[in-house]
């Protein structure tokens, strides 16, 4: 037995989508070891064999990974720099169904479009924007507004500018390299889902708990 220790740095990602039933270390984590030979050996360690034939998320623990890695070679010492609990998201391998995907995309587009239109209309009516504009018009010009005024026009332009600036882009044209608000919200949402899955798995509360 060699007295030399090979430190393997293990960086597990929080959630990994896999399509094969055999899950290896290289699928769910990044490794680093100064000895490339050991690194390669460790990356090829099999972590899990999924027996069920359905899409499921498995919550796993880094301790099992460390145990399996240290079994590879007596000189290995694992240093975990990533997550302690991680999720393997098994998705059955299947042919991409483009028609169905685009149907769903179209559905979401229609809901987004109508929802945004509905939201701004209800806001305008709720806040009585039209009457406020009439009042403002009378205040500035001293005469009653006839039909639509310059306020309506510039309000619409300002609204369009405001929305574009808020969402940080229009179609493919981006204002800055920041991620857009929805991208940020989507990541937060996914993070919360992962956190909830991990916490549910570790929870052993008796009696009052949500089933």
């Amino acid at each position, binding site marked *: 037995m060699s007295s030399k220790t090979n430190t393997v740095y293990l960086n597990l990602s929080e959630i990994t989508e896999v399509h094969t039933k055999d899950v290896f270390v290289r699928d769910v984590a990044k490794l680093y070891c100064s000895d490339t030979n050991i690194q390669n050996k460790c990356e090829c360690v099999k972590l899990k064999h999924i027996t069920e034939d359905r899409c499921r998320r498995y919550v796993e623990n880094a301790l099992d990974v460390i145990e399996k890695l240290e079994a590879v070679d007596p000189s290995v010492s694992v240093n975990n720099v990533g997550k302690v609990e991680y999720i393997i998201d098994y998705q059955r391998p299947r042919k991409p169904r483009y028609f169905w995907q685009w149907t769903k995309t179209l559905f979401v587009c229609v809901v987004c479009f109508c929802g945004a239109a509905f*939201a701004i209309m209800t806001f305008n009516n709720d806040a009585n924007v039209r009457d406020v504009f009439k009042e403002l018009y009378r205040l500035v010009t001293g005469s009653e507004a006839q039909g639509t005024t310059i306020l309506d026009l510039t309000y619409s332009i300002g609204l369009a500018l405001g929305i574009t600036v808020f969402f940080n882009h229009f179609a493919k044209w981006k204002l800055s390299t920041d991620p857009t608000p929805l991208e940020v919200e*989507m990541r937060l949402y996914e993070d919360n889902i992962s956190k909830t899955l991990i916490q549910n798995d570790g929870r052993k509360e008796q009696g009052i708990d949500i089933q």
Partner: protein
Amino acid sequence: MGTPCIQAASNIMGLPWWQASVLGFIGLSAGGTIAAGVFAFLAIIGVFPRIMGRTGTKRILLYETFIILGGILGNVSDLYELPIPIWFGGTFILGIFGLSAGIFVGCLVMSLAETLKAVPVLNRRIGLAVGLQYVILSVALGKLAGALVYFYKGMCI
């Protein structure tokens, strides 16, 4: 000779230039601020991420473009009362609009309730252990009943 020309140039939409610029400035600022407010609310309340998560589609930029278009066109058609040209099947298109707006508002009110943590707090207080799905179903049915009563029993003006 020159006076009517200058008069015409200094008139913007029938107003003297200074009145027009004051109103124009107010309008632009109001529009920008309200757009940020309303759409920040929509983005933060978590309706869009939820719909995307449920359908498993991730074309975020495309969806945002449609939100932008919906906001702009919805506002224009509301303020200007634009007749939207519907050549055929107007009822059908209105039906789609109603259904989509309904789905959206349904997600919105539930997101709001969830953000305010009404259901979890109630659950903890009375110690609800089983049947959370029936609670959720009851909320949905209650919303449906409420909407139907509201529209068909003349509670709206």
